[in-house]
């Protein structure tokens, strides 16, 4: 289980240097975006390499290329044109491209940059994690620094991890009605620690509803991974 963020991006440094090349930067970015959107997971790495070899900014490649493609895919998912599994293939393509671009990303962090951190996992007693993975991917795409604790996660771990990394958001997922009460416990733990206002709790999964969210006093419920992005941004006040 990977609990370190896959993508650490300084969003305040988007300026790219324009160079004259045979294939324009816009064309190459489009190509990157399309690789993700069209589910061409096998071509994404090559497209990323072509982009870097052309000498363009890695950061633009990520945000205006790969992430753009993922956002377009998310839009299609919302319109029922893409299926859950399609999004998973898109994300494979995105990560393949990211692997190539990552070593070229600027390391310096802007002191003023706000890093939105989010702890995510499937609550204790449940091992179904496809939905959670999708939310992690979409939030990561949206620029969150994700700490994925995996599945069947002991409830206290969510609170401890959030404290450790100073996260603003905890995302809890479950597919089973039997493990839903764990979500309530996490909310209560945060209340006890006096962190309830500082750390927002977002919940989701097959049997979850807005009513349940209200009942356990969680901060929000999203019906799917795309809704989760909008809600997460709203909860942490991300522009």
């Amino acid at each position: 289980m990977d609990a370190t963020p896959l993508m650490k991006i300084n969003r305040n440094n988007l300026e790219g240097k324009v160079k004259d090349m045979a294939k324009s930067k816009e064309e190459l970015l489009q190509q990157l975006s399309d690789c993700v959107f069209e589910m061409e997971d096998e071509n994404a790495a090559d497209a990323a390499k072509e982009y870097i070899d052309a000498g363009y900014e890695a950061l633009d490649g990520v945000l205006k290329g790969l992430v753009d493609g993922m956002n377009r895919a998310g839009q299609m998912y919302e319109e029922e044109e893409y299926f859950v599994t399609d999004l998973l293939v898109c994300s494979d393509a995105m990560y393949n491209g990211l692997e190539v671009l990552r070593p070229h990303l600027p390391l310096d962090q802007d002191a003023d940059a706000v890093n939105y951190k989010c702890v995510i996992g499937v609550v204790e007693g449940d091992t179904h994690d496809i939905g959670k993975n999708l939310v992690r991917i979409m939030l990561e795409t949206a620029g969150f620094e994700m700490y994925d604790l995996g599945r069947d996660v002991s409830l206290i771990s969510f609170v401890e991890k959030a404290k450790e990394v100073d996260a603003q958001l905890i995302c809890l997922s479950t597919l089973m009605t039997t493990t839903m009460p764990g979500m309530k416990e996490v909310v209560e733990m945060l209340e006890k620690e006096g962190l309830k206002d500082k750390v927002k709790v977002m919940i989701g999964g097959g049997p979850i509803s807005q009513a349940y969210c209200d009942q356990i006093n969680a901060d929000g419920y999203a019906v799917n991974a795309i809704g989760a992005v909008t809600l997460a941004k709203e909860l942490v006040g991300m522009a």
Partner: protein
Amino acid sequence: MRTIALPRQNIKFTYDTDIKDSLLNILIAQQIFIESPCGGRSSCGKCKIKHLGGDLPPLSVDEEKRLTQKEIEEGIRLACLIYPNTDLEIDIIDQEENHPVLTGGYVPEYQRNPAIWKKPIEITKPTLTDQTPYEVLFEKALDISHLPWDVLRQISMGEGTYTGVFNQDQLIGLEKGDTSELLYGVAVDIGTTTVVTSLINLKTGEEIDSEAAINAQKNFGQDVLTRITYVLDHGKKGRNQLQTAIVDSLNEMIQTMCERQKLSSSLIYEVAIAANCTMMHMVLGVDPLSIGKSPYAPIFVEEKDISAKEIGLTALSSFGRVYCLPAVSSYIGADIVAGAYVAKLHDRKDKVLFIDIGTNGEIVLSNGGKLVSCSCAAGPALEGMNISSGMRAADGAIEEVHFHTEKGFILKVIGDKTPVGLCGSGILAAIRELLKHNFITVRGNIVKPEDLEGGDPRLSYIDLDGKKRRICIGEGPTKILITQGDVRQVQLAKSAILSGFVALVNAMDLTFADLDEVIVAGQFGAHLPVESLVGTGILPKAVKDRITYIGNSSKTGAYLALMSLESRQEMATLAKAFDYLELSVTKGYERLFVECSQFN
């Protein structure tokens, strides 16, 4: 002169030791027939008897050769090779081959040897000179060392004819008169959705009647997890409510069959139950909570043989029993053990895949008798739930669909009524046709009208709801539409089942081509034609010509548990031989799930 006794058949006769004949011939002379295909030439090894008491000559070389070690340990001998000369007590093992077929499925051959049996006795009145207590008279006549207290209280004892009712070697009841011909049992399959009971004549193995009903626990939740959550929320009270719901149903169903057959329910002595693990916990009133959470460990899996009264089952003899078949784990219940046993997976030398399709799909792969199983959360879509036009398989439900380029959609509706919606088999048939005629792409998308040329026959069936595309397959009181969401529901179920299928085949290092047979089990599976199973990609096309159906093998397993102690023993052994593959933690499962979501 010496005697030979067959206590279970209540037969005792004398024989002349001077004749020096084989036991087989001595029995035949008494009109007691046991299977002997080779005619007593000691070459077939079929004339098995069980040695219960008295002296027998040591095991002959032929017997050692023809009997298994297990049989020898159990006292099995071959009647044609024994030349007795003392008092003997034996049991014959029925091996009839042609048992009546239970409706609703295939029944394998079995050794008829029910746990419940009867023995009629005669009690003569004690005299003033011999004041032997009745207790002792009954013990002697029944050939038992101790008359249990609860049996002693059951009836007023006196002279006359009585019948002892035994559960294996335990006396469980006494009845006035000779009732030895009247012996009934009930085989039960408790599914999450449906409950099926069969009234069985334990003397003949015949299924006399059967009754099916919706599981009354549905009021507490549609699926297993919701019902477990109900117990989680309501504690002991919730557990009692769920137990009462199912036990009351069973009482009613048994009563209904008895009334129809004009049979007193007091002549039913045993109810054998096969069910999934959660249902078994619930019918016995055992806490099911641990089943619903990782690591998914149930409270119990072993077989249970208990008093029916203890769980409130009253529509049978007051001393009746409940036998629960053994399970493997939370997700491989007694229903699957029963199915695997009925399909004889443990005996197969080839490669066979057994699949029970329902809300949870359970799959067992036998690779030459080595068993590995998995469970996939298919969700209720395949049973017509969570589908916009979905309904139960009742009048007005579309159960089959065909698309014809000129005639359009041809519907087969249950009860020949106006179509109202689609039941499980109907939704699968519809998706199958939509795929076949390219209304839906391999990725599960409904085609866009703008991508079709003018005059394309598909155009007239695509119905637009804003940007969303739906397919209209017929019209009843309202349009019957297949939405993109419906396709996705089926796609999820199909991905779940197919990925489990592939994961098991991979785990055994096999390919589809290696499979010799794919057995589809379950009430629901029986209604899904091969074309739909393969056409929607629930099962791979490569196994199309190797798919067979076994019916409600869970109930058949319960039937076998009623009729044969040997089958019980074998099922208990089988349950311990299963390996289990937990898909959600299998490496690469997510990727496999993605691959299996394609309709190709």
